[in-house]
């Protein structure tokens, strides 16, 4: 009996009128947990009842505490007939079970009814008294923290990353039970909501148990999904990364680097800033220690990065010589193809030879960004898909139960989850072997998804093959690929004194680095690009060149990954969102035939998606993709594929060649002309894009050899690479015959279409950027404007005989128009960036395509960007300084006497800047920042004044005045909006799909938010049609998420995502139904300015650059 749950019903407000005669309501409340129910008194004749109930106490197992939600039902008392339900509130009490999260849930919750939506609000207080249970065989896992965030949560540090955890639970879908025929839609919806809530609770508990078993205390990157398999049941599955997290004390706020806004992270040297997990692994370190420690690595590091920078500046013009003329057979593409073809074979082999492996053996990480030093090399994207037929549940016992309580899976239907487990096991094995083929022992940015249509299910998994620093991981976490002797060394390192630990991280002596399997420490700004696989034994034909950044190791010509761009990576210019979109018709079929048809189509779709991605990447003159997410959805008569990623120009990778068009029939003159026209268009677009995204790779300086500073550690091969690339031509000349150009052969109309579609992608309007990663590479100066949104569109294809091309065009337009719409709607926020643009496609019905987008628009300071850009011009000058100072090799002195480099510190995140910052102490850097902040804030005052006068002016003229005001409206709005929330009775809750909020610091994580709602209507027209219905529902979901967060005491949700949005309609019957599943992390954040107001350690001053009002 290890827990006592207490709930108190305080009051209600805005209740609906339930009694037409009196226009009032006689409301009372039922509070239910498990099988126990309490009731309040009836509060007669009021729409704003004050129950002020006693504390209802439930004495329960902590197992139940984890599984069950607290269920609050508001009813209208009726003397003569049955009481009418007004609505319900489900409260997940999990956040109360962890000592570090929330302690009380208290606040106004919307009363939700699946038919009527939100109907008033109820004020509830919930507490939990938890008794410690030290039973080793316990079934509960209270206290394990869950995070949706796919990085180490800010304000924690990872002492240890244990690895992959997964679990799934299965049940029959109440919607498909026989009982559903006789019960009301409301009862059925509520049964479903409750069941899913129970299942996610159970799932979380089970995962928690696994984590405890592994010795961890948290799950990061927790990704939970539902598979609505219809007749065959309901699967709730989750994956995550088990970690041991340690909380960074608030007092040392100066040190908690990770809590800073990423802008900071990037601006500042990663090493002095970040509480390097390495140090932590060597025992708890005080902030002071962290500080002192930060010198040595940053010293060695900065030297490296600046030296590599030197190289960069001295490198001959890029894009030449051995540059990647990968052609259609680009590296990652090939990988994927190979996977497709090999998968069948491998699967067979795997399943036959497989001994039952524990999940631990999957070296997978759901994280997408990592502490510095964690990620050593990145191999490329690995993915696997498999098509399965869902079979019906053959268990009559299940169909008859009406019980809400989860059935015990151990005793019956045991093979059901097993089957699903085996399916995923298969896929994971495949992923693992792909990673191995790329010379990688781990997969990062790993995710799994499904697409279901009738009885066919596509399971997909993808991730990025990578080599991780073994130091961070528990022994055995990575698979046997790595030399066991190497791993066995690790514990020794851990136990070593902190001093030793520090130095071991980036071993300076050659042999220690060799022992770690790293030939040489790679600079952080390019190290991850270096190929992990053996050059002589490349798994696919790729063009390798020496790294353009450090010149020491080989890099591929393009790099595709599913992770966020490492903060320390050197990029040129800004990034942009790239999407490949594709539809393929397929015949309607049933069962096996259908499944076979789909699996035959899949490889072609993947191939085409990759070709599109590659073309679009080249068209933008960029060379790497981050956050790649390929979604293939299956419908009855088509497959829809959507690949989204953020393209960037990685300084370390070679300049991409252009796209060259080659015709098959060169005899025809008009045809030739046509081709050369097209070629010209393409070249123009590339040039335009380069300008737009500021992709102008550092002009490579010719006088390499004559460089006054020959790096002592550079090897002869560096020079070899120079000589190789000496025969280059001007980079913008993309004319025929260039060997590094990417050749597109036009051999049929398809190809022509492809090229057209390539060119129809309209760039974002001026002032807008977009990406699907957390932040936009190349933008660092975020301001506080924030607007999270969800947009859903459903398109009906009425034309029965569509061609693939026609369909593609429709789908392409659908996505493009959606983006255009977003740009238009958010125009008041310019300059802004749409971050974490997450597209989901579905084919809900025969002729419907549904696209849902969730993203956040964030404002940034353009002026600063420009300023920096100008500063960038002075780079060469600055470089000289850095170089000279470099030569002195007195880093300590530089730390105190480097004001000369300060003015340059806020410049773009090139390797150069990092090196500059690495030298400047944070304090010195702050001088520059704060002065900027001053200027900024005075400007804000100005805006505010203006805004006020505008408002004071006559109302009639307001709009015109505002229009006339030179300030973008959104800017002043966002500033104003932060001003006076205090007066409002409803606490403001920010929502963002990112793991942070710019200009703020997350001071506490309150627990995971994982909510599932169903909404149904039988009066679709009256509710404004499908759009009106869904609009209201999404708004309601937001409202409920905000209310729950506010009740936990939070003021934001980070890592918010809408996992599921299943919309079904039947306009003829005037009906519609929608299911939405959302998740995120409830947090408390504080503005950095507020934090500074409190006595802060000296280092915080470096956060002055953030604009907060």
């Amino acid at each position, binding site marked *: 009996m290890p827990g006592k749950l207490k709930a108190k019903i305080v009051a209600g407000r805005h209740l609906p009128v339930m009694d037409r005669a009196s226009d009032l309501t006689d409301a009372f409340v039922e509070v239910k947990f498990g099988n126990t129910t309490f009731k309040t008194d009836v509060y007669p004749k009021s729409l704003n009842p004050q129950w002020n109930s006693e504390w209802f106490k439930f004495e329960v197992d902590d197992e139940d505490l984890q599984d069950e939600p607290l269920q609050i039902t508001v009813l209208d008392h009726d003397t003569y007939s049955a009481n009418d339900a007004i609505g319900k509130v489900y409260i997940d009490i999990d956040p109360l079970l962890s000592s570090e999260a929330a302690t009380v849930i208290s606040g*106004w919750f919307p009363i939700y009814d699946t038919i009527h939506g939100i109907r008033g609000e109820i004020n509830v207080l919930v507490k939990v008294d938890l008794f410690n249970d030290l039973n080793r065989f316990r079934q509960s896992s209270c206290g394990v923290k869950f995070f949706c965030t796919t990085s180490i949560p800010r304000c924690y540090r990872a002492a240890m990353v244990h690895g992959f955890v997964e679990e799934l639970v299965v049940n029959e879908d109440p919607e498909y039970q026989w009982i559903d025929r006789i019960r009301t839609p409301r009862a059925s919806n509520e049964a479903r909501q409750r069941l899913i809530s129970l299942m996610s609770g159970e799932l979380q508990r089970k995962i928690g148990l696994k984590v405890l078993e592994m010795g961890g205390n948290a799950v990061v990157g927790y990704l939970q999904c539902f598979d609505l398999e219809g007749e065959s049941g309901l699967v709730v599955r989750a994956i995550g990364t088990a970690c041991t997290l340690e909380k960074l004390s608030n007092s040392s706020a100066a040190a908690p680097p990770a809590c800073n806004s990423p802008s900071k992270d990037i601006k500042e040297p990663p090493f002095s800033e970040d509480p390097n997990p390495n140090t932590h692994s060597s025992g708890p370190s005080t902030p002071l220690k962290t500080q002192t420690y930060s010198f040595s690595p940053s010293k060695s590091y900065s030297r490296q990065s600046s030296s590599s920078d030197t190289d960069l500046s001295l490198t001959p013009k890029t894009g030449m010589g051995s540059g990647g003329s990968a052609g259609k057979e680009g590296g990652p593409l090939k990988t994927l193809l190979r996977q497709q073809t090999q998968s069948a074979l491998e699967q067979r082999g795997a399943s036959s030879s497989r001994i039952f492996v524990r999940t631990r053996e999957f070296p997978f990480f759901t994280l997408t960004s990592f502490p510095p030093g964690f990620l050593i090399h990145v191999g490329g994207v690995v993915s696997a898909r498999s098509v399965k037929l869902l079979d019906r549940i053959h268990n009559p016992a299940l169909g008859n139960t009406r019980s809400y309580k989860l059935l015990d899976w151990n005793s019956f239907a045991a093979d059901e989850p097993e089957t699903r487990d085996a399916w995923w096991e298969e896929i994971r094995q495949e992923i693992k072997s792909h990673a191995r083929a790329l010379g990688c022992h781990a997969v990062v940015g790993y995710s799994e998804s499904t697409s279901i249509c009738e009885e066919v299910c596509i399971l997909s998994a993808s991730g990025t093959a990578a080599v991780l620093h073994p130091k961070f991981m528990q022994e055995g976490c990575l698979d046997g690929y790595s030399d066991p002797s190497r791993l066995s060394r690790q514990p020794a390192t851990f136990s070593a004194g902190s001093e030793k630990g520090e130095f071991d991280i980036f071993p300076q002596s050659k042999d220690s680095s060799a022992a770690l399997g790293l030939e040489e420490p790679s600079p952080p700004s390019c190290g991850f690009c270096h190929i992990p696989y053996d050059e002589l034994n490349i798994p696919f034909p790729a063009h390798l060149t020496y790294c353009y950044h450090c010149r020491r190791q080989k890099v591929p010509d393009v790099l595709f990954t599913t992770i966020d761009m490492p903060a320390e990576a050197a990029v040129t210019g800004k990034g942009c969102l790239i999407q490949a979109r594709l539809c393929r018709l397929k015949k309607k079929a049933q069962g096996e035939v259908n499944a076979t048809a789909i699996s035959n189509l899949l490889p072609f779709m993947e191939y085409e998606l990759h070709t599109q991605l590659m073309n679009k990447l080249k068209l933008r003159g960029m060379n790497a993709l981050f956050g790649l997410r390929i979604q293939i959805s299956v419908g009855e008569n088509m497959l829809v594929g959507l690949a989204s990623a953020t393209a960037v120009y990685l300084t370390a990778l070679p300049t991409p060649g252009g796209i060259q068009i080659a015709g098959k029939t060169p005899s025809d003159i008009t045809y030739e002309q046509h081709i050369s026209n097209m070629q010209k268009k393409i070249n123009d677009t590339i040039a335009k894009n380069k300008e737009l995204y500021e992709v102008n790779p550092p002009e490579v300086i010719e006088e390499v050899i004559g460089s006054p500073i020959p790096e002592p550690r550079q090897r002869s091969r560096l020079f070899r690479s120079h000589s190789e690339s000496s025969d280059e031509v001007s980079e913008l000349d993309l004319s025929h015959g260039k060997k590094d150009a990417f050749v597109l052969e036009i051999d049929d109309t398809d190809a022509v279409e492809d090229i057209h579609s390539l060119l129809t992608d309209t760039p974002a309007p001026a002032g807008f950027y977009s990406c699907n990663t957390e932040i936009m590479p190349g933008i660092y100066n975020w301001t506080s404007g924030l607007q999270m*949104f969800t947009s859903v569109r459903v398109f009906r294809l009425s034309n029965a005989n569509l061609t693939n091309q026609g369909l593609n065009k429709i789908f392409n337009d659908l996505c493009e128009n959606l983006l255009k719409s977003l740009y238009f709607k958010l125009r008041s926020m310019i300059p802004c960036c749409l971050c974490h643009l997450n597209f989901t496609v579905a084919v809900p019905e025969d002729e419907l395509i549904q696209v849902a987008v969730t993203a956040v628009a964030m404002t940034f300071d353009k002026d600063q960007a420009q300023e920096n850009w100008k500063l960038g011009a002075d780079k060469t000058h600055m470089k000289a300084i850095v170089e000279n100072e470099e030569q002195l090799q007195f880093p300590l002195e530089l730390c105190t006497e480097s004001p000369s480099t300060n003015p340059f510190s806020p410049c773009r995140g090139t390797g150069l800047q990092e090196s500059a910052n690495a030298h400047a102490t944070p304090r010195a850097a702050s001088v520059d920042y704060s002065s900027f902040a001053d200027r900024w804030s005075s400007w804000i005052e100005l805006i505010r004044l203006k805004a006020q006068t505008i408002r004071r002016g006559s109302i009639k003229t307001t709009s015109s005045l505002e229009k006339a005001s030179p300030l973008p409206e959104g800017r002043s709005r966002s500033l104003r909006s932060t001003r006076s929330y205090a007066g409002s009775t409803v606490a403001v809750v920010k929502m963002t799909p990112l793991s942070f909020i710019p200009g703020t610091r997350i001071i506490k994580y309150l627990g995971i938010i994982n909510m599932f709602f169903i909404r149904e209507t039988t009066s679709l027209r009256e509710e404004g049609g499908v*759009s009106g219905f869904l609009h209201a529902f999404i708004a309601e979901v937001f409202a409920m998420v905000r209310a729950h967060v506010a009740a936990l005491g939070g003021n934001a949700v980070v890592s918010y995502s809408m996992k599921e949005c299943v919309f079904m309609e039947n306009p003829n019957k005037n009906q519609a139904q929608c299911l939405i599943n959302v998740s995120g992390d409830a947090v408390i954040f504080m503005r950095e300015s507020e934090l500074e107001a409190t006595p802060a350690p000296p280092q915080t001053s470096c956060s002055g650059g953030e604009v907060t009002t």
Partner: protein
Amino acid sequence: MSMELDVFVGNTMLLDEEVYKLWLDGYTVGDAVRLRLEGGVLQECEASEEVLHSDTMDQFRTFQMCERFLHCPSKLANQLLFQIPPHRQAMLIERYYMFDSGFARELLGKKLSKGTKKDLDDVSAKTGITLKSCRRQFDNFKRVFKAVEELKGPLVENIQHHFLLSDRLARDYAAVVFFANSRFETGKRKLQYLSFQDFAFCARQLISYWTVGSVDSMLEGMDVDLEKEFLHDLKDLKILITDKDMLDQHKSLVCAALRGKIKVFNEMEGNFKNLSRALVNIAVKLTHTKDVRDLFIDLVEKFIEPCRSDRWAVGDIRLFLTHYTSTAHKLDTFRHLVIWDRYMGVVKSCILKMYHD
């Protein structure tokens, strides 16, 4: 081939004031899109008409969902459905309750009944305001009226408190409520030249000086109704015209004061008795509800029109009324000075406001 569904929902309500205005003005989505196109939105941001349509639809839907909160503005601040920054909330409310003075002018003094609502299409045709907008404005009038008609305390403050309106707008509503309650006649042709603001000013005068609340600003005061006792006492002013001596004395005092100061002295002198009779008769008649309703028409017919035909300047009128009021204090036998001042103060400012073309 059609967009079946198209929604955009922001965590913080995203709204364009211009679109809000179009919605309030009762335009259909199609018309609103056209007007936005003409307004040149697309020039500031490249987009297609389709995009504009989708955006307009979204916002119209949002406003529609918000409307029920706007009916009870205090709810807007603590509803949970939409997250709206406070200054935006204030803007939404203020704009929602703002009315066209042309519309208000038409409705002034009319009973806010279903019958009136049915006739709104005439008002719409006359004023050029869409019927939808007329209905909204009418419903606003009625809602405000219902909410405050029975309330004690200062009318303007009551309105402000209940509807969170700006001071200025609350005052205008007070006028609307006041006129609707007392049903003053404003529709006669002779009164057509008066604007809503003219009447609103007069209403403020009446509220400030002639209602129960004006004497006793304590809570029990009712701002909506004219003070019965005061109206009754006005009968006593009759002596000013019935007592011949007093009338003559009054005339000579006024003439003495105005001699050489106004251009229309002769006309004034010749007409003094008529004018004085007119003003006093209006006062005396105010006991009857029917005559209260005719207050403004009486002022125009009996005083303003004669003056206008004699081409009095506003300054002349001001001087005349000032002295006409003040010299009454010098009349030996006239004792109802408090009532007199209270009456004339309001009548004077009303006449001055109403004396224009």
